[in-house]
């Protein structure tokens, strides 16, 4: 497939600190890519670099094969960026904010208005579109920012926490719209809402300390964990001695104690019975077995060392 976004050995420094280190990857046209990682992992910086809001210290970012630094004007025509924080002009209405921004891209007002109508209908913005930006809730402003980004019809949409400040219904409408845009626009976004990421993605990139730690579809990322399960056993009294005994079971991975509950990961259900044997004298109140999710994958211990680490 044709690459829409290409990063070649991109690095970003702030002072002596490396924010991004030699990132090299491509993103296919028309796909939705989710960026996840801890706070301060470098997600926002990476998105800002792709959007052209900042320049890399080394390496290059290409949009549709054009270097964003050398062909600034052409590349900016193709990309739109939605930052995490509200950046609308509070003294203009939501509609005026959108109209002004799209006009800077040389779009005709009738075309802009048609897109505003379409997207505001999809996001159920209604008459709020004509309210002063500074007087509407942030979730509404965020929806207007999404329309603003789409009003000049970019082929690449970069979004940093696009559903931040939104209520549940607005989040659903936003992701419905993104699903409709799939195939027509390349969408790269970051989010802390993992259920949203699990629901809307063609590919997930896990960023850690400025590097891509994991990269692939959700199924591919979970493939390595498929044999693993998360177990939890709640005891009437999980004392230190019992906890030590349970930890000593060689097949138990990453054991933790939360109150009287013993949490651990295991490669097969057989581990569970080994643990049960080890604590046959203790009184158990509850137990559960779950398949691993993206949340488990992103657990810092896993992300850094892997399940077997």
């Amino acid at each position, binding site marked *: 497939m044709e690459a829409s976004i290409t990063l070649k050995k991109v690095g970003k420094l702030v002072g002596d600190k490396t924010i991004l280190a030699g990132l090299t990857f491509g993103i296919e046209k028309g796909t939705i890519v989710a960026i996840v990682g801890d706070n301060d992992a470098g997600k926002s910086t990476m998105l800002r670099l792709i959007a052209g*809001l900042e320049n890399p210290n080394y390496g290059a970012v290409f949009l549709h094969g054009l270097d964003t630094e050398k062909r*600034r004007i052409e590349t900016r025509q193709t990309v739109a960026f939605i930052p995490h924080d509200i950046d609308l*002009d*509070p*003294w203009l*209405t939501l509609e005026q904010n959108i109209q*002004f*921004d799209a006009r*800077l891209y040389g779009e005709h007002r009738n075309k802009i208005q048609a897109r505003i109508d379409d997207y505001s209908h999809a996001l159920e913005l209604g008459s709020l579109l004509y309210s*002063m930006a500074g007087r509407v809730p942030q979730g509404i402003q965020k929806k207007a920012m999404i329309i603003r980004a789409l009003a000049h019809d970019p082929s690449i949409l970069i979004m940093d926490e696009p559903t931040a400040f939104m209520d549940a219904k607005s989040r659903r409408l936003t992701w419905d719209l993104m699903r409709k845009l799939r195939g027509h626009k390349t969408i790269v976004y970051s989010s802390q809402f993992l259920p949203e990421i699990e629901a809307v993605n063609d590919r997930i990139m896990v960023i850690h300390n400025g590097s891509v730690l994991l990269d692939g579809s959700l199924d591919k990322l979970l493939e390595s964990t498929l044999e693993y399960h998360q177990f939890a056993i709640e005891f009437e009294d999980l004392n230190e001695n019992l906890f030590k005994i349970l930890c000593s079971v060689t097949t138990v991975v990453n054991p933790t104690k939360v109150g009287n509950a013993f949490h651990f990961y295991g490669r097969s259900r057989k581990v569970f019975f080994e643990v049960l044997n080890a604590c046959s004298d203790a009184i158990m109140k509850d137990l559960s077995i779950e398949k691993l999710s993206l949340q488990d994958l992103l657990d810092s211990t896993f992300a850094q060392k892997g399940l077997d680490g």
Partner: protein
Amino acid sequence: MSAFIIRRWWLIRNRLMSSIALAFIIPFILSIVTVFGTKNIIIQSINGQPYEVWVLPGLMMFMSAVLITPLIYRDFFDLRIHNKALIPMTLAPIRKSTIILGILFSALLEVIVIIIIGLGIYSIIFPQAVAIEQVGFIIMYSIIFALLYGNIIILLSLFTERISIFMSALLTTLISIMFACGLFIEFPFFPNSMSSVFQYFPLSMVSVACRSILFIGSFDTFNTLTPLAVTIILIVINSFLLKQKMKQ
């Protein structure tokens, strides 16, 4: 450029009543407080013009500075430090100089309208002071003054990050141009060493050139073109500075 002009119109329209009120109140107050008292101290200029006639171009230039300041401050300082609308503007496929010129010229249009209202108010307060054939020159030089001063405020807005520093620098600049640029007090009233320096300030040159054409009838090429040249240089510097500040 048209996008910036429409935006300016929207900003005025969205606060229409306060805009109209300020368009009359500011020229009225400035005319009253700066001229009535001073004309009893400086009765006439050195070349014999009544003070209220001599001061008119300086008053309009000062008014243009007072009016353009909040417009520039909002777009280049307030919105920038609060990560508001300036960031999406810098992401658009336009040059930084276009952003500088777009904001500056659209603000200038608002200023010109209020200057015209100001001239009307002044002609009511001092009917003999405003000659209709001079109005065009006063507006033209007020525009040059506002362009140059606006660029100085853009420079200040982009350099400073803290409101307290910005306000201190702004007040110092406004008071300095009020007294040291020949707007309200002629240069010969200052000691020779100071006046010889003051008259070469680019902002002073605008008032000197304007009065030259109004009261002597000669077009002062040097004092007209130098401020324009400085304005162009400042636009280039401000464009570069905006690019640096936005890390783009």
